[in-house]
């Protein structure tokens, strides 16, 4: 089992390296930092620009392979290079990574746990009111693009705030700038800012998971081993929780990896719309400013996140399913 996980881990590291390299090559060939200097006044001379770009390892006159080697050897040492403005990419990552992770982790956990619970319960109550309502809700969310959900949440929040006459929901930034309210006050402020963007992310996760879990649960509900469990003397609730849901969770764990990719894309919009200075909004900004190294760094971050998610689901899978563990 340990060997299996180590092998998977090595695979993931290779995949992350490949994904980051491709992202770098794509960014380096399509983005042109030189353009940034063309609109400056006074316009710097070509030599000045070349010199500056050489410092940043962004000069398109240097062969791509050469630039890549410099960049890659830096990355190997843990240095993602410099941004177009000359500041280290690493500093920026440090500033932004927790902003994004907070959103992603809370959104994922919330969305998947509620999704699984609602899906499983809907399966037990198949064709009853709860099932019909959750099905309608899930399909509605699935049918609406993530952007529209994020924006509509803002609209609803505004309406709610106006109705109540207080700033209950805040949807701009991740915290009030310059707030001096002590630890609890700051935490409360952060929470208020977090609710809406997290909800926007979690909703999509919830919709996908509840549908999937409902189907998986329906598959096992009529199965013989649930009947055996009840014939043993377990009451309905225990048989459903300990035997049916436990078994029906296994396929959902693999499904987790797939939805996580979609979720990462969703983070980009959400951060942009809610004005969070996370990794997602950074990648959008960097494309506009032709910031090759930033784009590569964010791609690397996303690759790491997705691989971490699949590794987690590997572990969960092995934990849930003894058939993998034993053979």
């Amino acid at each position, binding site marked *: 089992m340990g060997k299996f996980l180590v092998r998977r881990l090595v695979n993931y590291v290779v995949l992350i390296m490949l994904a980051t390299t491709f992202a770098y090559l794509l960014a380096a060939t399509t983005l042109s930092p030189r353009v940034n200097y063309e609109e400056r006044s006074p316009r710097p001379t070509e030599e000045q620009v070349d010199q500056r770009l050489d410092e940043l390892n962004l000069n398109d006159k240097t062969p791509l392979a050469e630039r890549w080697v410099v960049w890659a050897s830096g990355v190997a040492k843990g240095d993602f290079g410099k941004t177009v403005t000359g500041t280290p990419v690493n500093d920026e990552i440090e500033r932004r990574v927790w902003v994004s992770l907070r959103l992603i982790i809370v959104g994922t956990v919330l969305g998947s746990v509620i999704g699984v619970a609602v899906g499983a319960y809907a399966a037990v109550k198949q064709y009853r009111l709860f099932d019909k309502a959750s099905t309608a809700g899930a399909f509605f969310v699935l049918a609406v693009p993530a952007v529209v959900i994020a924006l509509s949440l803002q609209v609803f929040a505004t309406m709610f705030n106006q109705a109540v006459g207080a700033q209950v929901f805040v949807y701009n930034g991740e915290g009030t700038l310059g707030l001096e309210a002590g630890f609890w006050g700051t935490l409360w402020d952060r929470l208020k800012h977090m609710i809406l963007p997290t909800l926007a992310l979690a909703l999509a996760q919830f919709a996908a998971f509840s549908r999937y879990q409902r189907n998986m649960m329906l598959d096992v509900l009529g199965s013989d081993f649930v*009947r*055996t469990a*009840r*014939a*043993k003397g*377990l*009451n309905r609730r225990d048989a459903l929780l300990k035997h049916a849901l436990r078994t029906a969770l296994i396929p959902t764990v693999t499904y987790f990896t797939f939805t996580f990719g979609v979720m990462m894309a969703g983070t980009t919009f959400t951060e942009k719309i809610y004005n969070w200075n996370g990794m997602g909004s950074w990648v959008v900004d960097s494309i506009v400013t032709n910031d090759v190294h930033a784009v590569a760094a964010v791609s690397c971050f996303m690759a790491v996140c997705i691989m971490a998610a699949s590794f987690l689901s590997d572990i969960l899978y092995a934990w*849930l399913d*003894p*058939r993998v563990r034993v053979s």
Partner: protein
Amino acid sequence: MTGTEIQTSAAVEQRNGSAPVLEVSDLHVTFPGEGKGPDIRAVRGVGYSLRRGEILGIVGESGSGKSVSSLAAMGLLPDHARVTGSIRLHGEELLGLDDRRMSAKRGETISMIFQDPLSGLTPVYAVGDQIAEAVRVHNPAVSKAEAADRAVELLELVGIPNPAQRYRAFPHEFSGGMRQRVMIAIAIANGPDVIICDEPTTALDVTIQAQILEVLKTAQRETGAAIVMITHDLGVVAGLVDRMLVMYAGRPVEIGAVDDVYYRTRMPYTMGLLGSVPRLDDEEKAPLIPIRGNPPSLSALPSGCPFAPRCPLAIDACSEAEPELQPVGAEGHAAACVRTGEIEEHGWSAADVYPLPEASGAGSGQPPREYRETVLDVDGLVKHHPLMKGAVFKRRVGTVYAVDGISFEIAEGETLGLVGESGCGKSSTLMEILSLRTPQSGKVTVLGRESGRAGHRERFEIRRDVQVVFQDPMSSLDPRMQVFDVVAEPLRTHRHPRAGLRARVNELLTLVGLDPAHAARYPQEFSGGQRQRIGIARALALKPKLLVLDEPVSALDVSIQAGVINLLDDLKAELGLSYLFVAHDLSVVRHIADRVAVMYLGRIVEIGAADSLFSAPAHPYTQALLSAIPVPDPEKERTRSPIVLEGDLPSPASPPSGCRFRPRCPKFRTLSTAEQQACVDTEPGLNAVSQDDHGAACHYAEKRTVV
């Protein structure tokens, strides 16, 4: 555990009186129809009572309501089922109990063993934990360690070797037979007073069935429980039960002591059932007695007796009202038929009541097989599957010896029965023959043409002469094709002239006993037996010389099965066909085959004329196989003692050295060490054991009568 034991023994004294443990009376179960559909009346007025230590058999075909009535007793029917009547356990009414109170009874005083052990255990928990859970759910005071100890005890009781180690095993590491043992352990964990067994051996091979029946007897001895044995197998019931209940269309139609029901049958349906079973102990080949027609739909029952449309004794009175169970003859014997009196008076049996099908002329007037043409010649056929490991760089880590050098031939007009337990390689043999490709080793010659030598065109020609009928009539017919197209497809593929197509299809449908007027219907409108007839018609369309039959009747109910077997017999005589008949049911094979080959782990261990092989098998495996099959005759069955094989079929990836049957062989154990050496070192070849080319692959082959 002491607390429970005291409680149990006190309860035993209280229960030892003649008061019934389980009393079911006037039980009705109805499933409301979906939408505006009619209700399905699955059980209509079942009643029986069960005393302590008694075994009651409930017999009936699929859809007769035997399982539904027992699930009702367990309170495990779906919520939408409407259950009325009364089920009393120790005098306490079970119907209407809420989930909590019913859960306290389930597994404690009444428990159940289900049909399919492969899906009956939760795949993600260790088997020991699943048994311990059954203990702890009713005795929360028992600690986890104590419950685990008890689970190990129970595993030992049901015959799992090394129970302490096997406790931690997961269900997928156990074979079907071992999982069924675990299910039994769960059922008896709390010493229940009633155990309901719902076809507990139907999904298992005969040698494993014999083991499981032994375990059930042990379990009953240990717990002193009353057992309800639900089955469709009249052989299993004969030797095991005290009383039996025959069900038809949701109604009990005959109930009584097992001898009364078997020897003094008073209900025409029971007679039909008994007459339609092919019997292993039948010396001569008489045609089976099928019951015509099909069981009625439970949502549209006829007014009078539901069996009347199929009954040869039906009179006008039968369609007026449904007959109630009337006492007949011996005490406790009752039958639901208006003509029981007459049956009793005349002493009618199945042979008198049912019109005997005309005996076919099979086998008569044929020259001896040496002078007949050989239709199929298999010589040293080998099929090995490599076991691969690794994702990118695959390497071979082993070999599955699915078919490991088998030889046989089929003469014109002959039926060869290929028998063996699941996993012995009989299906692989079939597929190799049908593929018409060059085998990995050995030679397959079909009608004088060697497989693999033929070009594309010639192979197409050979396919005309070799056709196949599959096991499952539900999945072997395309549900989107009309019956006409199903049967016409091979004709069209082989460019049959368009003009005669309809005539030929009608001819074929008539031949297999179907109405050509139904040709425009779809397969799902037919019953299982009728669908199998469609499959046979399709196989016969090209006038083949050899028909390969892969378990053609094993998915059918006995009364339907008899009709299909008779049809196959008739067709063989009429059309001069040869059959390669693969089956695991030896009674069916005895009935239909001229010669029989017994397979074990990819090898033929015994081959010979059916009469010779069945009356005096020489290989210990054949002997065990035959003795494990219960005979539908209570007196005979009680005196027989089956040779119970130990363990399961070894993995075909690592067969034992020397004789492959050695580890399970009862004979091997009786030999001296010096004699055993031969079995360990050398694999025995097929040696003749008598004049009539009857051969057995055993160093110490010895003819013996076991049936």
